């Protein structure tokens, strides 16, 4: 049974029409990646799915009783807030220590249980976020640019971990990413978004679609432009390089 159904979704902030006529379905066990330039409405789509943004048109329906695991884009923990990995894992779900350990194990960081969140490296932090999302055995995992701030090998390893998670738990995965060349290989389906769904299909189909090429350029040139801007932590600059790439 379909996990998430998005029908004719529209989202607007004031006069700014961010999303229009978006249709999308997520089936059990599939890995779907949403790609699109900055400001294309990727995060808005994810926010609409979790109910953080009210649609201005259309609707989002979730399968009754659907369990969502969410990995946020970035999570800032104020330095004045002391919290251990274990306490963080138990934030919203009543879970045993064994479940915490198991979830950390499947996220590839089994030894971090007693550490303070503030002591983790960027990669460890993202994996703990992943583990927290996995802890209540979700039917679908949502990841919003979960590899921001990781270096190239780091994010490649992170995506391999995602594939492992799918293989082990069978949960569906919907993720947003900039890192096309890494993500493409891991995905069953790619949705190219720019306010509306430009094109969708298997990674190979999307990569050769004219709509996709119009957005991201052709061949390695396009991938390289994206690759470069992924490694740039300055967002304003990101947009500039995006425009340059276009």
């Amino acid at each position, binding site marked *: 049974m379909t996990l998430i159904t998005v029908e004719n979704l529209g989202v607007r902030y004031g006069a700014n029409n961010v999303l229009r006529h978006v249709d999308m379905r997520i089936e059990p066990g599939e890995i779907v990646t949403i790609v699109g330039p900055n400001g294309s409405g990727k995060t808005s789509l994810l*926010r609409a799915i*979790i109910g953080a943004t009210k649609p201005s048109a259309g609707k989002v329906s979730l399968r009754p009783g659907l369990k*969502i695991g969410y990995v*946020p884009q970035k*999570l800032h923990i*104020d330095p004045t*807030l*002391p919290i251990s990995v274990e306490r963080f894992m138990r*934030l*919203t779900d009543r879970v045993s220590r064994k479940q915490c350990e198991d979830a950390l194990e499947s996220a590839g960081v089994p030894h971090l249980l007693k550490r303070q969140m503030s002591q983790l490296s960027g990669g460890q932090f993202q994996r703990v976020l992943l583990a927290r999302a996995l802890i209540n055995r979700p039917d679908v995992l949502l990841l919003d640019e979960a590899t921001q701030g990781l270096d190239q090998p780091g994010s490649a390893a992170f995506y391999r971990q995602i594939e492992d998670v799918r293989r082990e738990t069978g949960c569906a995965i919907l993720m947003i990413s900039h890192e096309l060349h890494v993500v493409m290989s891991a995905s069953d389906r790619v949705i190219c978004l720019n306010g509306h769904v430009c094109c969708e299909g298997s990674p190979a189909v999307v990569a050769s679609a004219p709509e996709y090429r119009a957005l991201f350029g052709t061949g390695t040139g396009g991938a390289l432009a994206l690759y470069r801007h992924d490694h740039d932590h300055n967002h304003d600059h990101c947009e500039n390089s995006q425009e340059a790439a276009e």
Partner: protein
Amino acid sequence: MLDDFMTRATLAGVGVAFAAAPLGCFVVWRRMAYFGDATAHAAILGVALSLTFQMSVFTGALAVALVMALTVTLLAGRGYAMDTLLGVLAHSALAFGLVAVSFLSGVRIDLMAYLFGDILAVSRSDLIVIWGGAALVVALIAWRWSQLLTATLNEELAYASGFDPKREQLILTLALAVTVAVAIKVVGVLLIAAMLIIPAAAARNLARSPETMALIAAAIGAFSAVAGLRAAYVFDTPAGPSIVCVAAILFACFSLVGWQAQRRD
């Protein structure tokens, strides 16, 4: 036992410390320090209004603090930066409050009592209001603890877990207004923010989890109230400021301990 004014004052101070500690932790974690200040400053307008309409000071202060806190929440993120907005609202409310008080002819008002508190004049009925309000705040925060913590960490995480972070923000706002209203008599509007922030900030150096931080903050706040009152009695200093001074000294000591511990790590 409650016949002794020092006993009543001590109980009042400890009551406020208990409410302020867990709330103060959230104020620190969410960087709402100025927000607490603004709400407290606005309360002086509430004092003026309650004297005009002959209501209890608690009711007037609570109403204005609530209106202030809700206004700030509504206006946040609409044009002005938060600190600008709070600077405008807090000091305007304080100024209007002071002007309004000056219109009250016939009643001689000791303004100092509301600006810096009048803990030695706490009555039995004040004690009931203070402990009732403190119990309400502690119960509210304990009830929503996990949700408040999640909403503090990340808004989307809260939505994905099935609750609305805006409602949690509203609960904190409500708790803040109640705390301000009950704390006026104890430390006065100018020092309420100190009772929120200093114990929580001092506790950070000793705590390893959010829960222990709130408990340690409560202990530091309560100790400051007891020791501050004692010092005020011995040295004949103003009571409210003396309590805050003790808290500040504890903050300095624990920060030194914290830095030492960090250097060893």
